[in-house]
């Protein structure tokens, strides 16, 4: 079975620009979570979606938004990029029965210059 997929793999943006990151969960998984991982630190929770509804939000500014589509794929949008937004953005999906388990995708490496 295919794992969680994310696109693009790498991205370079300029301060002030907007970015959209995409995630496809494992087949059959209906829950998607987004995390930001700054180099040398653990992942930090941004959003969680289940059945297209936001179920959780971390301590991130309103510049960060997300949505989940009917096929359970998800997008993370970040507006007005700052240098500090440079990080690895991870998407994780959870199976419907064992919702506590989260399986991460390879991530999108975002560099803001």
């Amino acid at each position, binding site marked *: 079975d295919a794992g969680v997929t994310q696109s693009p793999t790498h991205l370079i943006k300029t301060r002030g620009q907007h970015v959209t990151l995409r995630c496809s969960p494992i087949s059959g998984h209906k829950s998607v979570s987004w995390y930001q991982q700054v180099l040398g630190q653990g*992942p930090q929770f941004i959003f969680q979606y289940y059945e297209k509804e936001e179920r959780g939000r971390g301590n991130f500014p309103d510049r960060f938004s997300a949505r989940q589509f009917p096929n359970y794929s998800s997008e993370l949008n970040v507006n007005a990029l700052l240098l500090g937004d440079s990080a690895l953005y991870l998407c994780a999906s*959870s199976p419907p029965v064992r919702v*506590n*388990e989260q399986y*991460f995708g390879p991530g999108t490496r975002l560099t803001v210059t």
Partner: protein
Amino acid sequence: QQPVQSPQAVILREGEDAVINCSSSKALYSVHWYRQKHGEAPVFLMILLKGGEQKGHEKISASFNEKKQQSSLYLTASQLSYSGTYFCGTESIQGAQKLVFGQGTRLTINP
């Protein structure tokens, strides 16, 4: 609040044992353990739920003491493939699926 992991880094020879600790100041419902190799995504190892259970996965096992709000990951007879950064993720509310990760423990296994 972020759980605290200790030690921050460990260097071992192949075949040696290691213990990684994860401590939280908040009451916990579950503790999740992940291993991340450089440039790769975190890989799920195991979950321990409230109830003080212990789990095993080949030569990697873990315990969860909910009263002390602590979890420990045990790596026995370490292999080169065990190298990486280990993260604990904690969940305070059942079903929240919002994991709060520690800062990580870097494990290096030398031949």
